C-alpha cells in the first residue's frame, strides 16, 4: 500500500482558497503571461511564414468615435485590425465593430464601379460605367444648375444643388465642394442624432459635448446613455468609466428606461418614465441649492446667475414633483443629490435618453447645471470641456454661397445650430424648396430617419428630385433609388484628417489608405477633385482654383504640414507613420495610464477656462462692468478676482445658465421641465423607444458577418406586467401600432424595461444593404445567392433579420435644438391579427405629413409653443420674424 498522501478535490479547493487569501497581494501567478494587446500591440506576424506584417496606422470609422487603429497588411491584403497604442484616448483598443471593419473592404456586395440607372428609379437596373464617365455626368448636371443661376442672375438657384450626409468625416472637403459650387444646401444628420444635447450645451459654455474625467472621478450620474456599449466616444469613455468604477471605486448611478449594460454595471439603476430625466435633474438641483450644498464661489464667479436666482427658479421642482413625473422615489432623489454634491470630484454624463425628446435641450441644460452648481466643471475627476484640435484648410478657401438655404437651416428653428434635416422631404414635397441635383454621402435616410417612408417617397419621385447621385459603396435602402452611384472606397482605403475629443488628451489623427483602393476604386476626395475640374475645366467659373491639388496626398499635406509643433515633427509624413499626434507617452502595461519615460503618469490639463490671457492678448482690450474682456468687439476673456482669464466660449465668457438666446424666441432662458404629450398617454398605450446595440451602427454594419452573427434580430422589449395585461408571452407575434400605421414583430418579455415602454433596437430589418443584411439567401436562394459567400451560404444559422421600427416613429422635433424626438411616439401593442406576418409594415405618408404640420406648432412661431411657455417674460407679439439664416444660437 502506498504511503503517498491522498488529496481529495475538497483539499485542493480549500488550499487554493487559502492561497488566494494569503497571497493575493503577492499576485502568485505566472509572470510570463501578459495582456496581449498591451504587450504585443504594434506588431504582428504571419502564422505561416513568421514574417512581420506591415503595420499601417489609421483612424477607425466603423462608427463615429474615430478610434486609433493599426491595420496589419500581408501580401497587399488587410489581415487584422487592432488598436493603435500611440492613440492617447483609445489606448490600443478597438470595439467589435472596429475589429470587423476589414470585412467592409472585401465584401462581395460592395459597389466596386460607378453604376448608372437604366430602369425605373429603384427598379434595380444598372449599367456599369467608368469613374471618368460618372464624374463627367455629375459635373454636367451641376454645371446646368450653375449656368441657369448665372443666366437668370439668381444665386438662390445654386441652392438647388443639395448635399446630404449621415457621416462627414472629410475634414471640410464636402463644405469646400459645396461652397465652391455656390450652394449652401448641406444637410447633416445631427438632428436625428444628438443635436438637442449640443444646443443644450453650446450656449452654456461653447462646445457641444462634455468630456468627463471618468477615471479620476468618485461619483457619476449617467442620464440616458449606454456608454459602455454605444454612446458618443463609447470606446474611450467605456475604458475610462471602468477605470473609474473599478480602479478608483467611483459610484455609478444610471438612469435609463431599459436595463442597458451600463445600467447593469451601475451601483444603482433607476428606470424613469421616458423624457423625465430633466425633472429628476432639476429636483436634484433643487435639493443641492436649498440645502446649501452648492459651490457658491463657482456660481458667483463663473456663471451668469446668482444662487438666489437659481433657488427661486428651482422652487417648483421638488423631489416630490419629480417623483410624480418620473416615478423615481423622492427620497432617492434627495439622497443621490446629496451624495453627488458632497462626493468630490463628481460628474454627470448624458446622451440621447434625455435630449431625444421634444424640448430635449432643456433636459440637457438641466443635467449640465448639476455640474455647475457643485463646482465640478473642469476639475480633475469632474465634468470637463471636450479637447479637440483643429487643422488649417488649404488656401484659397471658397466663400459660402450667397443665399442661405431654407432646407439646410429652416427659418422656424433659429436656435438649431445643427439644423433640422428631418424636415427636408416635407418642405420639398410642399414646394418650399426646389431640388435639381441631390447628392448623398454616408447617408441612408430611407432606413435611418423617422417616418422613413416619407424619404423613400421623395427620393423615388423624379419630379421632386430630378437627379440623385450617391457616393455610397453599399447598396443601401437610399442608394438603390439613385440615378448615379459613384462609389467611395471604405474608410481603410482613403484619406481624412481627424480630431475627436474622445478623451482628455487633445490630438490629431488621420485616415490613410492602408492598402491601395481595392480593384482600382477611387476615393471620394479624388472624385470631388475630378467633378470640380469638369464643372470648371478652364477655370472661367473661378471654382477650379479651390481644388488645385496635384493629388489627394497633396491635399492632406496642405492640412498638416504647417501646424506648429507637428511641422517640426515631420508634418504629414509623421502622421502617416504614427497615425496620431502628439505622442503623449506610452500606455502603462499595468495601469493602462499614459506614462512618460520614467513611468510617471502624463496628466491631462485641467481648468482650461482659467488660462490667463497674455499681455499681448490684453493689449487694446477693454473690461466691461461685468468683467467681460473685449477686444475689437469680440469677447476674449473674463476678469475674475483681478485675474484675466480666457473663460468659456460664451458672450459673457462665463457659463451662461441663463440663455438670452432662448428667451429671444419665447423659450425659457433657464433650464426647465416641460411635460411631454407622451406623459399624458392613455393607460393602455406605451411609449416606443429605440436603442443601439454594441456591435452595430444604426445602418451600416448589418452586412458584416461577424457582427450579423452576434446580433441580427430585434424583438420588442416589453415588461411582464405589460405583456400579461395584453395576453402576450415571450416570442409572440405582435402588432405595434402608432398613428402612422403598424409593424408586426415579436415580443421579448423582460423585467429590464419600464412597464410603460416598449423598446426596439435599430440596426435590424433591412430591406437592402447586402445579402447578409437582408438574409436573401433564405428567401430566394436560387435567384439571388449563387456565387456568393460559401461561409454565408453554409454557416448562417439564424433565420431572422429583425423588423425595423422607424416607419412607425412619428416626426416630432425639439423646437429649440431641432432634434428628432425619437422617444416620443405613443403606440399600442397587441397580439398580431389573423393574416399578419412577421415583418409586415403598413404606414401612411399622409399621416406623416400631418405630423409635420403638428410639429411646426411647437416651433417658436407656433400656438403650442406659446401655450407651453406662458411663464416667459417676453412680448409675444414682437417675436422675431422667421428669416433665412445659417442656424445658431
Amino acid at each position, binding site marked *: 500500500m502506498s504511503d503517498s498522501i491522498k488529496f481529495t478535490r475538497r483539499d485542493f479547493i480549500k488550499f487554493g482558497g487559502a492561497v488566494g487569501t494569503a497571497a493575493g497581494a503577492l499576485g502568485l501567478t505566472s509572470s510570463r503571461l501578459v495582456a496581449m494587446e498591451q504587450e504585443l500591440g504594434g506588431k504582428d506576424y504571419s502564422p505561416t511564414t513568421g514574417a512581420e506584417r506591415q503595420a499601417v496606422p489609421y483612424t477607425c470609422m466603423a462608427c463615429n468615435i474615430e478610434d486609433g487603429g493599426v491595420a496589419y497588411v500581408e501580401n497587399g491584403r488587410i489581415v487584422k485590425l487592432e488598436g493603435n497604442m500611440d492613440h492617447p484616448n483609445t489606448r490600443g483598443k478597438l470595439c467589435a465593430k472596429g475589429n470587423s471593419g476589414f470585412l467592409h473592404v472585401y465584401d*462581395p456586395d460592395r459597389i466596386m*464601379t460607378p453604376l448608372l440607372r437604366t430602369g425605373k428609379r429603384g427598379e434595380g437596373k444598372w449599367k456599369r460605367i467608368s469613374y471618368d464617365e460618372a464624374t463627367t455626368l455629375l459635373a454636367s448636371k451641376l454645371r446646368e444648375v450653375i449656368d441657369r443661376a448665372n443666366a437668370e442672375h439668381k444665386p438662390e438657384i445654386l441652392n438647388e444643388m443639395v448635399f446630404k450626409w449621415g457621416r462627414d468625416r472629410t475634414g471640410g472637403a464636402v463644405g469646400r465642394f459645396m461652397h465652391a459650387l455656390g450652394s449652401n444646401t448641406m444637410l447633416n444628420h445631427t438632428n436625428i442624432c444628438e443635436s438637442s444635447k449640443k444646443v443644450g450645451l453650446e450656449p452654456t459654455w461653447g462646445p457641444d459635448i462634455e468630456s468627463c474625467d471618468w477615471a479620476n472621478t468618485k461619483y457619476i450620474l449617467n442620464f440616458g446613455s449606454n456608454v459602455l456599449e454605444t454612446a458618443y466616444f463609447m470606446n474611450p469613455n467605456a475604458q475610462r468609466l471602468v477605470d473609474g468604477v473599478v480602479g478608483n471605486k467611483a459610484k455609478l448611478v444610471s438612469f435609463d428606461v431599459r436595463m442597458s449594460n451600463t445600467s447593469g454595471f451601475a451601483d444603482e439603476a433607476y428606470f424613469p418614465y421616458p423624457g423625465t430625466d430633466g425633472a429628476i435633474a432639476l429636483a436634484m438641483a433643487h435639493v443641492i441649492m436649498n440645502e446649501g450644498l452648492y459651490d457658491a464661489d463657482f456660481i458667483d464667479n463663473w456663471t451668469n446667475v446668482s444662487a438666489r436666482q437659481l433657488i427661486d427658479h428651482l422652487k417648483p421642482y421638488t423631489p416630490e414633483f419629480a417623483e410624480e413625473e418620473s416615478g423615481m422615489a423622492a427620497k432617492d432623489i434627495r439622497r443621490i443629490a446629496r451624495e453627488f454634491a458632497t462626493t468630490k470630484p463628481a460628474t454627470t454624463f448624458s446622451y440621447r435618453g434625455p435630449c431625444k425628446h421634444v424640448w430635449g435641450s432643456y433636459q440637457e441644460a438641466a443635467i449640465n447645471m448639476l455640474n455647475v452648481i457643485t463646482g465640478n466643471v473642469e476639475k480633475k475627476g469632474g465634468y470637463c470641456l471636450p479637447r479637440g484640435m483643429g487643422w488649417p484648410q488649404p488656401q484659397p478657401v471658397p466663400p459660402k454661397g450667397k443665399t442661405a438655404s431654407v432646407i439646410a437651416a429652416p427659418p422656424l428653428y433659429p436656435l438649431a445650430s445643427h439644423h433640422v434635416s428631418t424636415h427636408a422631404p416635407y418642405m420639398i414635397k410642399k414646394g418650399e424648396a426646389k431640388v435639381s441635383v441631390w447628392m448623398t454621402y454616408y447617408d441612408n435616410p430611407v432606413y435611418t430617419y423617422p417616418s422613413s417612408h416619407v424619404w423613400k417617397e421623395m427620393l423615388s419621385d423624379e419630379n421632386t428630385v430630378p437627379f440623385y447621385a450617391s457616393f455610397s459603396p*453599399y447598396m443601401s435602402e437610399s442608394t438603390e433609388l439613385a440615378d448615379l452611384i459613384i462609389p467611395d472606397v471604405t474608410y481603410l482605403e482613403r484619406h481624412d484628417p481627424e480630431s475627436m475629443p474622445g478623451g482628455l488628451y487633445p490630438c490629431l489623427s488621420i485616415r490613410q489608405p492602408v492598402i491601395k483602393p*481595392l480593384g482600382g476604386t477611387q476615393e471620394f476626395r479624388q472624385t470631388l477633385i475630378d467633378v470640380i475640374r469638369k464643372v470648371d475645366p478652364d477655370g472661367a467659373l473661378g471654382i477650379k482654383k479651390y481644388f488645385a491639388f496635384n493629388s489627394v496626398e497633396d491635399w492632406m499635406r496642405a492640412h498638416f504640414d504647417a501646424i506648429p509643433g507637428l511641422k517640426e515633427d515631420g508634418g504629414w509624413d509623421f502622421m502617416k507613420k504614427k497615425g496620431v499626434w502628439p505622442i503623449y507617452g506610452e500606455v502603462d502595461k499595468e495601469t493602462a495610464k499614459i506614462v512618460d519615460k520614467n513611468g510617471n503618469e502624463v496628466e491631462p490639463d485641467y481648468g482650461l477656462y482659467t488660462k490667463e490671457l497674455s499681455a499681448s492678448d490684453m493689449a487694446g482690450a477693454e473690461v466691461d462692468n461685468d468683467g467681460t474682456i473685449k477686444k475689437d468687439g469680440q469677447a476674449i476673456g473674463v476678469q475674475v478676482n483681478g485675474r484675466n482669464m480666457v473663460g468659456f466660449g460664451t458672450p459673457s465668457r462665463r457659463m451662461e445658465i441663463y440663455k438670452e438666446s432662448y428667451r429671444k424666441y419665447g423659450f425659457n432662458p433657464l433650464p426647465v421641465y416641460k411635460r411631454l404629450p407622451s406623459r399624458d398617454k392613455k393607460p393602455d398605450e406605451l411609449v416606443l423607444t429605440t436603442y443601439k446595440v454594441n456591435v452595430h451602427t444604426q445602418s451600416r454594419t448589418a452586412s458584416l458577418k461577424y457582427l450579423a452573427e452576434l446580433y441580427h434580430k430585434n424583438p420588442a422589449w416589453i415588461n411582464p406586467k405589460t405583456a400579461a395585461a395584453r395576453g402576450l408571452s415571450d*416570442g409572440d407575434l405582435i402588432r405595434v401600432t402608432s398613428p402612422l400605421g403598424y409593424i408586426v414583430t415579436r415580443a421579448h418579455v423582460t423585467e429590464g424595461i419600464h412597464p410603460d415602454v416598449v423598446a426596439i433596437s435599430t440596426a435590424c430589418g433591412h430591406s437592402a444593404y447586402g445579402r447578409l443584411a437582408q438574409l436573401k439567401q*433564405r428567401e430566394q436562394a436560387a435567384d439571388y445567392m449563387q456565387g456568393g459567400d460559401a461561409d454565408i451560404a453554409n454557416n448562417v444559422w439564424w433565420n431572422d433579420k429583425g423588423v425595423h421600427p422607424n416607419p412607425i416613429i412619428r416626426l416630432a422635433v425639439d423646437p429649440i435644438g431641432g432634434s428628432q424626438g425619437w422617444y416620443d411616439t405613443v403606440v399600442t401593442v397587441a397580439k398580431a391579427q389573423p393574416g399578419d406576418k412577421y415583418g409586415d409594415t403598413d404606414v401612411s405618408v399622409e399621416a406623416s405629413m400631418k405630423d409635420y404640420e403638428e410639429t411646426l406648432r411647437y416651433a417658436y412661431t407656433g400656438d403650442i409653443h406659446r401655450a407651453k411657455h406662458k411663464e416667459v417674460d417676453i412680448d409675444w407679439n414682437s417675436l422675431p420674424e422667421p428669416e433665412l439664416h445659417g442656424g445658431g444660437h
Partner: protein
Amino acid sequence: MQTTTTMASEAIMENGFEQEQVDETQALAGLFGFLARCLEEEADAALIDLIRGELRGPLAAAGLGFDEDFYHTPTATLVEALAEEYTGLFVAPGCVSPYASVVETGCMFKEPADRAAAAYRHAGLDYRNRLSGEFPDHIGTMLGFYAFLAEAEATARLAGDNERAEQYRTQRETFLLEQLAEWAPGWCRRAAEAALLPFYKRLLEMAEQALWSELEQRVERRRLRELAELNRREPKRLDYDADFRKASGL
C-alpha cells in the same frame, strides 16, 4: 533558304494525328476566347455584329441559337439591354459574383486572385483591369487565359516546337484542373439560372458544357464525380421554424 520552322511544319502536316491535335487546340482557343470575350465585359456592337453575322451559322451548327428578337433588335438597343443584364448578373451588389475568390472564400481579391495572376505571369502575361472592381480571377479572364494557352500551344506545335507546345499544354491543363475545375462549371450553371436574357443564359450553358467537356478529357471518372459534387455547392436551406427559436433566445 528553308527555315527550320518551315521544315518542321511540313513534317507535322505529314502526320495526320498531330494536325488533328493542332486543329482541336486551335478550336479550343477559339471557343474559350469567344466565351471569354462574352463574359469578361459587356458586349459591344462589334461583338454583336460578329455573333449575328459571321458566327451565326457556326453557333447554330453547334446548337446555340438565339431567338429572332436577338437578330432583329437594333444593335444600339441590344448593346444597352445586354449591358444592363451584364451589370445585374455580374457587377452590381447581389450579382452572381464572377470571381473565384468570392466563390471560394466569400471575399473579393483573395488567394485565388493571386494564383490566377501568378499563372498569367508564368506565361509572360500581366493583368491590367479596364474598369474599377475587376480582378485577375474573373471567370472571363480565366477562360481567356485558357484560350491564350491553347492558341500558344497550337502555334508552337505548328512551328514544330513540340517541347514548347507541351509546356503550354501542361500549363493549360494545370490551370484548368487547379484553378477552374472545382468551381467554374457550377458557377456557369448558377449564373445561367439567374440570367434573364437568353443571350447570357445560352452562353453560360455553353460555357458550363465546354468546361465539363474539357474536364472529361482530362480526369478520371472518380475525380469527375468529386468535381461534380464540388460544383454543386449550393446554399443550404435550414428548416425554418419560427417558434423554435423564441424571439428572446439570443
